[in-house]
């Protein structure tokens, strides 16, 4: 296991490329080695959350009338993280709840902009960060897939050409693709969502707890599809509490703890250390000072 230090962490074992690419349309020259899918530079993400139980205008007015402020708490979800992820990596991210895993994934997807630092992404991103393609339960699976694809930036023709393929991959019974989504079982719903995210031919696929959908056969099919994506040198980042999945599927893993990368390296070893932490409840002695 490699212990984090103050420098940039580069995942994988390959030699860094010296050929640089330039991001156009940004202030100054932003350079990125051409072998990298994602570069994270000194990333910090903080946000404020309202800790009031009643998040209503009425409550805010009542508090203001008493001279009280709305109770807010600042969350420092990711702290000064620097990381290089080469193309073709399958990165597993483990960590306890509140470690900053989902926030990191959202920031790579461009959903949550940094508070400080920078993220450079090279390639088309597809995400499955919240369960379900989820737009409207009254609409059919086909309609929801079209909306999901359009939101992801695809054209209608591109999506329509994939809907039957998605339905087949998701193992939907005959005709179900044109039935309202509210008639789907939770398994079917999850399978469609997963099928959509892997069918968008992404360069970078971000999955947050998305592999729990479906039965063992679908899980095997999902793994197979992800291996295909990896063989095409596409990059996959997986957040999962299913540690066996991380060990089986990933070629490198990151252990996040309170917004920082505590350790990274070979998935089996990272998972082993993380499991010890879960059982004992304290950090391994060599990581306590991190």
């Amino acid at each position: 296991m490699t212990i984090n230090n103050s420098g940039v962490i580069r995942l994988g074992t390959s030699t860094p490329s010296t050929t640089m690419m330039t991001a156009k349309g940004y202030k100054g020259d932003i350079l990125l080695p051409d072998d990298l899918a994602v570069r994270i530079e000194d990333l910090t993400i903080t946000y404020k959350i309202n800790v009031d139980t009643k998040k209503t205008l009425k409550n805010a007015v009542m508090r203001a009338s008493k001279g009280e402020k709305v109770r807010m708490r600042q969350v420092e979800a990711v702290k000064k993280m620097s990381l290089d992820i080469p193309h073709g990596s399958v990165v597993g991210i483990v960590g306890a709840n509140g470690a900053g895993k989902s926030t990191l994934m959202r920031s790579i997807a461009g959903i949550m902009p940094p508070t400080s630092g920078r993220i450079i992404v090279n390639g088309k991103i597809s995400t499955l960060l919240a369960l379900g393609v989820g737009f409207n339960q009254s609409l059919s699976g086909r309609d929801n897939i079209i909306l999901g694809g359009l939101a992801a930036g695809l054209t209608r023709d591109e999506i329509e050409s994939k809907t039957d393929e998605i339905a087949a991959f998701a193992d939907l019974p005959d005709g179900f693709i044109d039935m309202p989504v509210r008639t789907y079982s939770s398994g079917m719903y999850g399978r469609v969502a997963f099928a959509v995210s892997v069918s968008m031919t992404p360069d970078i696929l971000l999955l947050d707890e998305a592999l729990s959908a479906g039965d063992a056969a679908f899980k095997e099919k999902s793994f197979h599809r992800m291996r295909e994506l990896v063989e095409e040198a596409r990059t996959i980042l997986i957040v999962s509490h299913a540690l066996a999945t991380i060990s089986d599927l990933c070629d490198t893993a990151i252990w996040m703890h309170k917004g920082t990368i505590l350790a990274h390296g070979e998935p089996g070893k990272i998972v082993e250390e993380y499991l010890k932490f879960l059982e004992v409840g304290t950090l391994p002695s060599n990581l306590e000072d991190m």
Partner: protein
Amino acid sequence: MSTTGSGGNKPKRSFTPLIQVFEPHKAQTPPLIPYFKEFWERRAFALELARFADKAEYLESRLGKAWLILNPLFLSLIYFLLVTVLRGGPNKDTGLSTLAHILIGIFMFYFAQNIISDGAQSITAGGRLILNQAFPRALLPFSSAVRAFGQFWPTIPTYFAVVLLGKVFYPKTHIPLADLNYLWAPFIIAALAITAFGLSLIFAVMNVYFRDTSKLLTYTTRIWLYGSPVLWKPEMLHGWHRIFIYINPLGPTLAATYHVWIDGVRPSNSELIGTGVWVVLAMAIGTYFFTSRERDFAVRI
């Protein structure tokens, strides 16, 4: 461009030549030029979302989209009866113009109300989408505005049908059926839509922070209707009381609506200036408030 996968010994493959850089927002707002460029590029999503939302709402309704016309039509008739009773009975000379005024006023006000109310709920309703995809969030209230326009335009032929029918029974009525000043109508409708869209951006953010905002809007818009020149004529206010038309974001536009549709005259200069001021104010404040809070949506939904 080609790269070598380096997580292992991966084959060479051409990547989509797309480098995206995510940096902190300056003054809390994203870079506005790329933001609006992306907004424009993804407009197909907003249009389809509007179409599908309509489809879902009227999927199981027997009368379907007919309700889009029937609802404001019945409401106009109820208000017409109410106003007529309050005035002490029907007037042969002004009855039709009162009905026509209430009709076009309600149609226009409901158009603005739908943009504001649906837009206010668009962010909280788009929860999974916001957690899953990066796109300009203003597309969601914009989609609500598109949908509201789709619901509004069929009411215009309905208005003409009612006026045409009224003219058969009251041929001496002064309401025009065709007039050159009707050329002002598209501008007035566009101004109303833009002002309402700007306001919807403000209420959409408020609804993320305070979930009872949309409930409050139900009552606020009702009072707003009574305070707008929809059930009463703009000329009923005199002197300094006319300020109540101009401090209302929809007031000058609805007063202009009355003059164009019922009197067949051009809007007054003060109505045009008031309309322009509210269009600019609503869009400027709405856009800044919305874009500066967009980052919070993913953690507050």
